[in-house]
């Protein structure tokens, strides 16, 4: 277990308000003026999104349609506009990511924590051919090695797709999860 050490004097309401003001127009922050050009690559996911979630499950030797659900995915600029913090909540739990960009290598570092099932990892992603792609070499408990490919794909204004694929070979790629997200328009408390 770790202990978060923050000086309590820094936790005054005034100090916090500068970090996350209640004004909805300020909720999602802005990139730092000095942020490198590549930092814009994740701009498509900034805001409050709701999503359709569809998973596949491996049963009897084949991937078949599995659980479907709904998710909320919210992302904002943090750390003086030098990082992106996103919060994913679905029917099965919550995950939080912090995304930071390394200008020299052109890659993103993603610290990922999920509540259920419990998981934490440091991942790396790169903008490739109009997608934010994350490739991880994995191994099943039975020793079978495979490649997992996760990609964000901007799909027009206020919409993006998140897909998770198992790559058995270049010719054999199975999509095992899809999250289709659309921006929630902030209507400023209007009833209709």
């Amino acid at each position, binding site marked *: *277990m*770790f202990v978060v050490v923050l000086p309590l004097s820094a*936790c005054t309401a005034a100090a916090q308000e500068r970090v996350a003001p209640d004004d909805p127009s300020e909720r999602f922050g802005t990139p730092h003026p000095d942020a490198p050009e590549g930092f814009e690559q994740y701009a498509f996911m900034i805001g409050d999104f709701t999503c359709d979630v569809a998973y596949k499950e491996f049963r009897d030797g084949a991937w078949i349609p599995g659980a479907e659900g*709904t998710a909320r995915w919210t992302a904002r600029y943090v750390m003086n506009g030098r990082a992106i913090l996103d*919060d994913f909540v679905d029917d099965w739990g919550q995950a939080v990511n912090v995304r930071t960009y390394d200008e020299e290598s052109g890659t993103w570092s993603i610290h990922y924590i999920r509540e259920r099932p419990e998981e934490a990892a440091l991942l790396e992603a790169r903008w490739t051919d109009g997608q934010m792609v994350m490739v991880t070499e994995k191994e099943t408990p039975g020793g079978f090695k495979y490649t997992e490919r996760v990609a964000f794909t901007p799909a027009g204004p206020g919409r993006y797709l998140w897909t998770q694929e198992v790559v058995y070979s270049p010719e054999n790629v199975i999509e095992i999860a899809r999250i289709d997200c659309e921006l929630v328009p902030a209507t400023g408390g209007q009833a209709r």
Partner: protein
Amino acid sequence: MRATARPLAICARQPIAARIREERANGKRRSGIAAIALTLVLSVPAPCEAFQAETSLPAADTYLPGSATIEYAVGAADGETWEVFHTVRSVGFDGAGNLYVLDAGAHRVLKYDREGSFAGTLGRQGRGPGELERPMSMVVRPDGALVVLDAANGYILFGATGAFERTVRPGAPAYSTAVIPSGDDLLMVDHSVGVRRAGTSSGTPVLRQPLATGESAVPVFEAPVSLLGVLARRDGSGNAALSLRRAPTYSPMLRFTAAGDGGFAAVYTADWTVELRSPDGGLLRTLSRPIAPRKTTEADRQAASGGGLRARERPRANGDPARLQLSDLGDAGFADRIPVIRGLLGDGSGLLWIARETEPAGARGPDIDVVRGTTYVGTIRGHRMPAAFSEDGRAAYVEQGDLDITRIVVRRLPAAWLGR
């Protein structure tokens, strides 16, 4: 039973601070995270707590006689469209005993009369008036009016006749699966605390959503617990620091249900402690039973554990743009105790069913403590928790049958189980 009442001459903006001072005076100590989390909620507005009382309930169980009898069940693998469920997210009764089932997978609400006969459908998939796209939860009012929380469309209001009335769209999605009515408004738990409230809290808030005006939801209470939390701040030079954390496995989480008079009951500690709070979030009374949480065992530690991250903004001495410095915070580990309470359901008029952790887990259903008002009624041995109570002494259970077929089973409850 012993009931103690004492005035609390502390106003409102400091209920948690008052508790910290009180606990220190009583020699209690909290973990570092809990203490920080408590401190962070000081800015949450809350009404003045003019009076607060504690009620200690008996330690020994008094088992309640009787058994629940099935009145009807709906749900099948094949059949009419109204008896095949896809993804049931919420059920509820109106005052006449009609049952409503929110089937999110089918984008509709199904209505059954008090005998279980199909009585109609509300909503269909879409984004127009009265349509459901991503329904999350539902509130049924005594007159049969409904509010459906839809993450894509907002709060969709149907009148007592089932006719669509209007949609309320505040600036954030209607995304909560824990929601209760409170007068004309709703109270709901917001688990998406990590980003929306980054920097202001690492707790779990209960929000009040006004429906008459459509204004944005406001927090009325914040439980100082969160399975995932984000802490952000700036130092005196304006540099940012941020920490992500995951609570140790088996940490308490916020459980929330309807209590009387539009208020709510909340559980968020490992002990048998239930707080009764007003619609404005003020603490009215604390109920407790001297039942100790059991210690976490090696068998409980099978689940994997993760870690955390700390990021700091490090300005460069030569005036170049600051860089981020990241460091991992290691394993979150396990809580040393398993919370006593694992389920909570109220009928909105003072009845509370409080499900307890039993050992060995899974051997039978949980023991359920029945409380009406502030009185311990007794304990139901080994019974599953329902999803909703009716006013006429029944309860609806969402059950998975063979082949994962979802059924809604309505059972008549013994009067003793209701404290009547």
